[in-house]
């Protein structure tokens, strides 16, 4: 089962084309991995651990994709957020943090964007393109 998970990205008035949110397409094994990493954070008194983001994509406020690279998922004791670089711009974006429990227990179902239901995977043919 796929769990789409939305993370909002704070606006940056200095740049145009700044993404407004990202969507993570978390499969069940990804959720297990997040649990495991959260336990590592707790056991080793870390503030955060970063794992390479498996499937994620960023979108602007109109729902159009924004190209990113070096995406990372940051896992703390009880929350997760993502960071990434805007492709070819050398700028880092960082999402707001959301409770891990939301990803593990209550997947966000996207009803107002290109991903209309919780079973849709992030694939290129589901991503809107500009006319």
């Amino acid at each position, binding site marked *: 089962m796929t769990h789409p998970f939305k993370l909002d990205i704070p606006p940056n008035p*200095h740049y145009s084309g700044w993404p407004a949110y990202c969507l993570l397409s978390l499969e069940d094994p990804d959720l297990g991995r997040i649990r495991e990493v959260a336990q*590592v954070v707790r056991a*080793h*008194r*870390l*503030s*955060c*651990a*970063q794992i390479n983001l498996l499937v994620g994509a960023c979108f602007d406020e109109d729902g159009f994709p924004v190209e990113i690279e070096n995406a990372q998922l940051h896992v703390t004791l009880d929350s997760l957020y993502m960071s990434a670089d805007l492709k070819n711009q050398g700028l880092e974006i960082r999402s707001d943090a959301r409770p891990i429990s939301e990803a593990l227990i209550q997947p966000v179902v996207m009803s107002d964007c290109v991903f209309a239901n919780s079973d849709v995977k992030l694939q290129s043919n589901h991503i809107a393109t500009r006319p």
Partner: protein
Amino acid sequence: MTASSFVLIAHTESTSSLASTQALRIGFTISQTFAKNILELSELVRERDLFSVEQLITPEDAHLVLTGSAGAQVPAEAWALKVTADQFWMTAFLAGTNHEVCSDPQELATLRGSGLSQD
């Protein structure tokens, strides 16, 4: 307990609001215990197949100073250590702001080569 000093060049986001802080330097002195901690964290990264881990730094862990281009100390807070499988670096926030300063990465081999990893 022995200690060793490092100076890492910091860089910031290239926004106009931070133009005056481009030439920051992070200098730090770490204890043998903290150096071993850094090496252990790198092992953890490798064993758990993580990209990196982050640990908040207390004054007991390391003495850190952020210095501006004119040599004056720049107030900073929320110091953190970040460790990958083969590098480590320091981050901090300019005091009272949400602007993060990030040092250039340092090779872990530097710690091993300094003898800090040996009791």
